[in-house]
């Protein structure tokens, strides 16, 4: 990404993106009793915001800053440090391919190349229909099942190039089959 300077006092309204819903704010507040400082609820707050909006928008960062009683720059500081937080919209499903040594030795590079070709996008890009974004990550701690990749929550293990069509065409390829905890999810929209 090229450098972009943001002056939050003059930034155009439409660049701020969506803000947090009242329910999301309420949910973030439920994290406060866990920690001795409000600021410590930063990562949970960002997880919730990202789940609700799809990425960490400037307005959401501003909302979180207000909730946690820190300057907005402190929130942006954190967002830009962690690789899992997005500062711009992403696809509905994010494919994260492991690129560390074990997976590479087992054919991770070929899987990544095939994915790029099938989706027609490069790393850090999103398909035009907004369905998939593609990123790589260092070791996902499933090295015994290399090469592996995650689609949102679901880890696909021992992925071979010939499996990709099947995986990509499965509408539930990002769903896990186990009881979920919604603590870090956005509040259900009713």
């Amino acid at each position, binding site marked *: 990404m090229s450098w972009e300077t943001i002056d939050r006092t003059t930034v155009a309204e439409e660049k701020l993106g969506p803000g947090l819903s009242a329910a999301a704010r309420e949910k973030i507040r439920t994290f406060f009793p866990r920690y001795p400082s409000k600021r410590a*609820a930063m990562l949970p707050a960002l997880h919730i915001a990202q789940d609700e909006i799809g990425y960490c928008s400037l307005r959401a960062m501003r909302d979180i800053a207000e909730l946690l009683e820190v300057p907005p720059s402190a929130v942006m500081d954190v967002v830009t440090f962690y690789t899992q937080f997005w500062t711009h919209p992403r696809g509905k499903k994010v494919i994260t391919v492991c*690129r560390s040594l074990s997976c590479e030795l087992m054919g991770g590079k070929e899987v990544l190349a095939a994915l790029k070709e099938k989706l027609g996008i490069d790393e850090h890009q999103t398909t035009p229909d907004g369905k998939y974004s593609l990123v790589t990550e260092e070791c996902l701690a499933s090295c015994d099942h290399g090469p592996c990749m995650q689609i949102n929550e679901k880890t696909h293990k021992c992925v071979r190039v010939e499996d990709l069509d099947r995986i990509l065409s499965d509408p539930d390829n990002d769903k896990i089959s186990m009881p979920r905890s919604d603590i870090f999810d956005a509040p259900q929209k009713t």
Partner: protein
Amino acid sequence: MPYERVLMQNVGVPNSTSLQVYKAAGGYQGLVKAFGMKPGEVVDLVRQSNLRGRGGAGFPAGVKWGFLPIDREITYLCVNADESEPPTFCNRITIEHDPHMLLEGILIAGYATGSTVAYIYMRGEFMEQFHVLQKALDEAYQAGYFGKNILGSGYDLECYIHRGAGAYVCGEETGLIESLEGKRGQPRIKPPFPAIEGAFHKPTVVNNVETLACLPHILTRGLDWWLSLGTEASKGPKMYCISGPVNRPGCYEAPLGITVRELIYGDDFGGGMRDGKKVKGVFPGGLSVGVLRGDIFPKPPDGQVDPAKGYDELDCILDFDDPRHYGLLGLGTAAAVVIPEDVDIRDVLLNVTRFYSHESCGQCTQCREGTNWIYRIARRIQSGAGRSYDLDLIAELTENMGMMPGLSICGLPDGAVYPIRTLVQKFRAEFERHIAAQTPDAVAKTIKAINPAAYELPIQEGRALAHVGGSMQEIGDRL
């Protein structure tokens, strides 16, 4: 005699994540036993067991707990579940298959250290594992194992899972604490160590998942059992991981002290190489400890260990001390990845250097710039434009990074130095062979491929070089 699995006793048992199954197998008895002792006695027991941290540094847990100030009011316990060292996955196995063993370990450690709140810092990529652990935690809360007056002992402990968001350096204990406090995960200058001033400026204990998972067994099976396992200075069982092209990649438990050869070829472990290939090299304890030569090299005729000579090093014993004789950092996480004979060592170097250059948090100049510089050199070598003095340059750079020469805040660059230095030293002949086989115009070709404009602009070759690979030029040259 086959070894009886302890840390992995519930792996493969149906429904092993449920409280019921865990309790039926004798779960939470260690906690009951601990509650029958004074906290100080538990600390003493752990100190006598010489339980060394499984997170990488190998620091004795009992001694670490002993550093806590006596007159402290609040103590926090942080559980390091940020497992991001490639290719380590033993903590994942524990959390996935036996979350209650970890929770019991947390309770025992919390009781021994007088902690009131435990935070499990879990890496953000652990999704399924998060749901498993959260469910187990809810179950344990319901059964009265967490909260107020646990099992009528008068001891209170709250436990929360804190999810990270993708950063290797948050596994470093002070990086973890910073991240927990809602900041960038940049490690702190030590001292003060976390035991004195850690999370929220209060005394804090940071322990790895596996370290804590050992505690219930030390209590229930006793010190004698524990001390009967392992080697001289490394006691107890360990979950060894093996990955790469072996027949049975996975996590296997054994008493500390098996050799790398056993881990790769043993029928109870890796089961040999796929397609009968030979081993070129192996990172025996996570990338950060460095690399050993494999069995494509001849065996040492006199059986002497000398990493300067080009002999097979697979007889290295995986305990806390022996790897040092082979020029490695230590045991690390005891997770091995095997490089087969047909892999280009330049690709390995590139992958390893990219990891550290990506994960450096950027606070310390030599770590931020050094890891990146070595990565660019590795890229140049890999693309067929290497120069033999690049190898010397890498060697020199690795001398000037890290905590050991006193140049950095955390141990990440030390973890970068060992694999990079040992790769270049132990496989120098292969690098030299590749470099000698390069065509004379390889450099120019590579530059052209990477940056065609370099040849259309009226600049000298030297400047183009600086553009692509490197920082080799004098500053004046680059202006």
